[in-house]
């Protein structure tokens, strides 16, 4: 999962540091008196918002304009527990309501067209940027060494027809916006919209950012990334921490919601293809994994152990599949997976699910022998394919086999239930 933050974190940790003007805000712990005083200071109106990752807050009713303290406190309590598009809010907060006729959209991101960062602006802020026509937005490549200067920002704003009175201050603000982007290791940051006040001052009224986990700047101790509830499962959280623990070999794992095949997959490309094939063929893969990158033994063992500990008890089939590796040593990875499987059965008792394997690459022969011996030891049924069988064919076969196993099990469970009920009867 990418590291992301939303508006509240921006308000609390970044805006002041980078001199970016924002509306005043109070968090959900604010007392009724504090909210009352704030509303009075803000001209009687505030906006209560959910701190939740992802968009769609407005349509879900998680953004509410309030005009008195009683209503504000009620909404803070209600919105703090809301779910938006399946995601639980972390908390709620209230910001100053800023009416404005001028709303500006801005995003800085790395852009494949320029092989570097770019700034995109539009005067049609406050709406989904994808709905804005190409004539109403402008993108400017930014020199990654020199950064954005106010002159460039000013040119862009002028081209878009920004009111002259606010071009200067908005340009300066965008330079600060760039400074934040490049100083904190972000890969994308967006303010939508900047609301321009009557005195021509822009205020960042919504914010989101995605950070680049590979950039050392995100390790700045002044920047704390909040944890959002239910955004990841225990398995994903465990895998993410394990993945981050070392750069030797991949250890990605993202839940797909399936419940039949436990897939230990190798290679970013191969794993995507296999998971797609499993889904299409009804194999219901539990997660999307990529365990390639030539992991050493201990890395692969830890990865497999986590996958098994979280998922093996509910799997109908274990699939170990990848393409013909260029670099990943098959004997090392298979020995590690085999040991993790062996230790799982030693700790939790025997398994009775089939194992389907397909792989090729360096040191494949000793790897296959080690895996076969381990599977014989733990007495699991298995089929092993070499690299002359396409991985998509193996995935399709695994999906069909898993469906059969599931049907058998369900039939068995049903007949057991029938026996029980007839005995009880």
């Amino acid at each position: 999962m990418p590291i992301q933050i939303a508006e509240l974190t921006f308000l609390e940790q970044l805006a002041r540091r980078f001199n970016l003007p924002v509306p005043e805000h109070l968090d959900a712990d604010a007392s009724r008196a504090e909210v009352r005083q704030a509303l009075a200071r803000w001209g009687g109106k505030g906006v209560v918002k959910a701190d939740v990752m992802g968009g769609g807050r407005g349509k879900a009713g998680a953004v509410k304009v309030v005009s008195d303290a009683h209503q504000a406190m009620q909404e803070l309590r209600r919105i703090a527990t809301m779910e938006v598009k399946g995601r639980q809010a972390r908390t709620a907060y209230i910001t100053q309501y800023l009416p404005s006729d001028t709303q500006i959209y801005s995003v800085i991101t790395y852009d494949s067209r320029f092989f570097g960062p770019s700034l995109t602006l539009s005067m049609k802020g406050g709406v989904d940027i994808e709905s804005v026509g190409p004539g109403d937005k402008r993108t400017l490549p930014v020199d990654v060494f020199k950064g954005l200067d106010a002159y460039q920002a000013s040119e862009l704003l002028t081209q878009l027809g920004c009111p002259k009175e606010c071009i200067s201050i908005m340009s300066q603000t965008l330079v600060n916006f760039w400074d934040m982007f490049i100083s904190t290791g972000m890969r994308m940051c967006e303010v939508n919209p900047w609301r321009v006040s009557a005195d021509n001052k822009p205020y960042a009224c919504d914010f989101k950012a995605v950070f680049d986990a590979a950039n050392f700047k995100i390790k700045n101790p002044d920047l704390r990334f909040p944890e959002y509830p239910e955004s990841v499962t225990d398995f994903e959280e465990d895998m993410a921490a394990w993945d981050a623990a070392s750069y030797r070999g991949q250890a990605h794992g993202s839940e797909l919601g399936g419940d039949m095949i436990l897939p230990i997959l190798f290679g970013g490309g191969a794993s995507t293809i296999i998971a797609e094939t499993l889904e299409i063929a009804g194999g219901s893969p539990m997660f999307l994994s990529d365990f390639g990158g030539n992991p050493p033994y201990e890395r692969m063992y830890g990865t497999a152990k986590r996958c098994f500990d979280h998922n093996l008890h509910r799997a109908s089939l274990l699939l170990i599949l990848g393409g013909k590796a260029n670099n990943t040593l098959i004997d090392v990875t298979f020995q590690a997976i085999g040991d993790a499987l062996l230790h799982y059965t030693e700790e939790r008792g025997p398994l009775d699910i089939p194992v389907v394997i397909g792989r090729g690459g360096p040191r494949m022969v000793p790897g296959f022998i080690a895996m076969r011996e381990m599977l014989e030891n733990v007495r699991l049924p298995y089929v092993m394919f070499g690299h002359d069988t396409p991985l998509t064919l193996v995935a399709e076969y695994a999906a069909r086999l898993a469906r059969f196993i599931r049907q058998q099990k369900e039939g068995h469970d049903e007949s057991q239930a029938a026996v029980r009920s007839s005995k009880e009867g």
Partner: protein
Amino acid sequence: MRARRLSGLLKKGDHVAVSNVTGREASGVSVMSQRYANNIVGGWALGKGRQTIQVPGCSGIPVFPTCAELYAELPKSQHPNKVVIYSPPTAVYGEVKEVLDHGGANLRTIFIVTEHVSIEVTAKIYSLCKGASVDVLGCNTLGVINAHEHVRVGAVGGDSPEETFRPGSATIISNSGNMVNTIATYMLSAGIGTHFGISTGKDVLILTPLVEYLKLAAASEQTRLVVLYVEPGGLYESEAVEWMRKTEFDKPVLVYVAGRLTEGRNISLGHAGAVVEGPETSASGKMAAFDDYFGVGPFDPGDRGHQHSADKLRRGIRVTTLHHLPEAAKLICNALGWKPDFPVRQPLKLNPWFINFRGLGDKLPASLYLHQVKIPEPYHAQFARHIKESFGLKPARRDMRNVSHASALDDVARVYGYGLPELMQTRSFGEVLILYWTGELPRHDFEARLVEMCLTASLTNGPGTISAQGGKLSASAGNSPHTAMIATLATIGEVHGGNGRKGVRYLVKVFRDLGINDPYAPDTGVDLGELAQQTARRFKKTKDAAKESGVGYERIPCLGHPVFNDQPVNYDPRERIIYKAFEDAGRRNVFLDFYHELARALRDVGAANKIWAVNMDAALASVWLGICWVPLMEKRITLTRVEDCSFLGFALGRAAGGAAEFLDHQDYGTPMDMRLPAKECEALTRPRKLQ
């Protein structure tokens, strides 16, 4: 781009340098690359250098401490024009800068293999390389292979690139390194080989975009067909499609687009995590763009309608599953009237190499029940050899610098997980020694006692043995007591004391395929007399043939004794004690019994004129092999370890014996008394003078 055609990326005669060449991955890959292409002129590794990575059969790879020193010390004619970066992510920017500073006009291409380079650094690298007119591939590329000229950089093709990359007419361009290899393998079944295999890299910013590769392919005659493996993210494909349409690109393209799975899901995984700059960057958007360019729907193996329409397939086709690529390629070849590069192989199908369905097999419907196929060569022969050679545990190698199975220290010191205090209180030295050396506590009580008896027997064979002399020499020189043990150990080896190890090796050769489960069983099911007779006859045949030819032959280890050798039937008294200990425990030892049968059989067949003594080394080998036999058969212990245990059993006892000689010599001897007087020494070389 500086390259004008694909060979501009890599060709025969290019000089390649590798950064961080001594790293775990770089060193392994570079050795394989050097064997395949022999194009690496050197590498550098900060803080290392002044060494050469040996590559069997071709030039070694000289290692320099820095990039600057590589350029300073290599002759100018050897200066690299291609550089592969394998440095850790945080070092990549600095390495690229160094390469650009020193590379000069000769430098053409930088391949950045490193993963997890930040996007900011990637953008900076692009800017630097563009300014220097140097092509840059990556980051996170696996490399490039030019199959026609038998050269590669990076790991494309793994350890057997020739097997996958047969020279042919397809250029494979893939966001995934693994898919380059995998697709090339599948294309072989359509009779289509590879011209270039290119791993573009899979980070957010792909520094050489697809359109540039297509331009190179357009200018390369050997490429007839382009195969693409594409993932979501970036506008690289829409840009390429626009260019192909505009320039009327005349080579058909086969494309597989992955990543639809991630649409509508909050998943950022591998390549699919690229910044999405609009709907065109999604998997669906890319599929639509290609279909629109091709002017035909995706390949459908059941639809024969495409086959007769050369015009429709002129631009290529998209496949929806990876294993349709060869069929789609054949369709294009047929439609365009092309011959394949080599004869078409069997179509791709399920080829299980190993199957054991166990009880499940009875329940499976015919459609799921598979039959094992013959494993293709050379793998069939490799499996056969490995299985034959596979005896005992074959653990995967790993970095053991800071880890140990044998010991641990948490609240207490531990031996294979058991607390040392508990072992001290409840177990004998022999039991703990077996645990520490084999990883398992002894299965039988008598085994520890036998090990202790072997240690006692190994203490000494008199002061004249060279190992005892070692201890005495150390005392005579005035050394500290521990040096006596070192000196004693330094004087034992394969000839003196190492016979037990040879004995284990010999016994395993005889017994490994006989299916013995318990070496102490009263009846192991093996006719030892017959086995000994056969072995003796084979030995006599070898011995006679060798004598007739006047050449040496391999003796049977652990038979015969320099002292106990003058009777018709000879015994080593120490071995008898071990033998009796087995009897006292109500057990046999099949290996020791075999040795006695063999000594008798050798006399019977005329290979010996008397029954040789089964010596103490045979007893040592038999004791340790008996202890280790079950773990060895169950692949919990390596054969090397069993051989070594037998040798170490002698070495441990004799080291203590050497210490005893030291203590005695130190108390009663005089300094330097072991020195031989000069008059007792004879010169075998006449005195000579330097000119």
